[in-house]
């Protein structure tokens, strides 16, 4: 599982730095790592999802100039929240639920990152700019949600009968 996860993290870095950063809409661009963090929480559950999100944050922070570790802090919270929301469902989440999670996770992740940044001494982002970032990031998350969730289902389902994390709907034995 972790080998596949490493492959996804590496691929995300290439896609983010090489492709998504170049497609700037109204001053903002999509965030592949945030989408993967949401997917991790949703698919792997709050515990393993948050652990994966932590690692994704460390990788993402290699390519930005914001304080190292800030993305990890943000992604852990988002993944954990996504995992908890999924664990409250009686069965597997519907595609509509996944899209809603991607939308809310995109908005929440952007606002959380900006808020945590201010808490640790980063300059505040003007509200208008923050709104634009939240809209563009969440739109990107919704647009690529199916791919993100599929990647994590592929990752987590690799170990048959592995530890069944609470809330995970594809934790190895689900298929």
């Amino acid at each position: 599982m972790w080998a596949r996860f490493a492959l996804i993290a590496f691929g995300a870095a290439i896609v983010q730095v090489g492709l998504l950063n170049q497609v700037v809409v109204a001053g903002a661009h999509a965030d592949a790592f945030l989408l993967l963090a949401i997917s991790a929480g949703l698919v792997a559950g709050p515990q393993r999802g948050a652990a994966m999100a932590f690692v994704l944050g460390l990788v993402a922070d290699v390519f930005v100039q914001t304080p190292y570790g800030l993305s990890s802090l943000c992604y852990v919270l988002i993944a954990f929240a996504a995992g908890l929301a999924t664990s409250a469902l009686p069965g597997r989440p519907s595609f509509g639920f996944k899209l809603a999670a991607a939308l809310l996770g995109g908005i929440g992740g952007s606002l959380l990152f900006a808020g945590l940044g201010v808490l640790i001494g980063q300059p505040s982002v003007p509200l208008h700019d923050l709104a634009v970032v939240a809209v563009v990031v969440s739109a990107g998350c919704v647009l690529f949600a199916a791919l993100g969730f599929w990647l994590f289902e592929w990752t987590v389902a690799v170990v048959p009968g592995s530890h069944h994390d609470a809330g995970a709907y594809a934790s190895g034995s689900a298929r």
Partner: protein
Amino acid sequence: MAASRRNTSQRLTLVILLLASITVITVAYKGEARHAVTSVRNAAADVVSPLQRGIAAVLHPVGNFFAGMADYGGALSENQRLQLEVGQLRRQLVEASQAQAQLDQIKAEERIPFADGIPEVLAQVISSPASNFDVTVEIDRGTSNGVGVGMPVVSGAGLVGSVISAGGSTAVVQLVTDPRSEVGVRFGSGNVALAQGQGEGNPLALQDVSETAVTYRGAPVLTSGLDVAAYPSGIPVGTVSKVRHPGGSLTSQVSVSPYVNVSELQYLAVLQWLPPA
């Protein structure tokens, strides 16, 4: 019972991961760890820069297309404004040729540091900000080309920013519009102030401008070069776009529109000049 144990385990995991994140932020904030993080970031940037160069060449038109779609109304009004400006610029060209003759005379008598042949390294922008919360660009020149941290970066129109990180073949430039950027400037009749970035697309804000400072809309703003300034003196920064005198305050609120449109940067020059130690 099992559910309770599971909840406890989840909370414990969350707390551990949050503490780990906070520890990473704290440790990487300064000292040796900060240097290590910077080295890793520079190395990673060098590794992915060939990919960025290739994709940037292909995707610049695509990015411009999406940006244009998102701001079609703005593009129309921008077009009208530019047409007006063309007329004004033609008139100014005639005036400028006369002014140039005067400037040549002044230069002959007085040293102007910005025009005094500071060596420069031409560079291409290969990546927009990697984070939505950075106001930086990445360029395709690094320490192997003579680019170093702290060097000012300019375009033909004026000040762009300064180098904040440099790897072997790439460097990161913090733009003047970054909220962490502060530029010592002079404007009007001998006024000096700090111009602080307010985010991409927003004017710079001049800090601590005395209410008695004389200025006007359209007044040019240049780097001051005072004391241990981060920039040499005389680099054009922008023009005063708004002056407000809030009632009861001893300071004025002055906004500056940068000359350089930082969102459309493609080529720029790094001045091989370092601030005095």
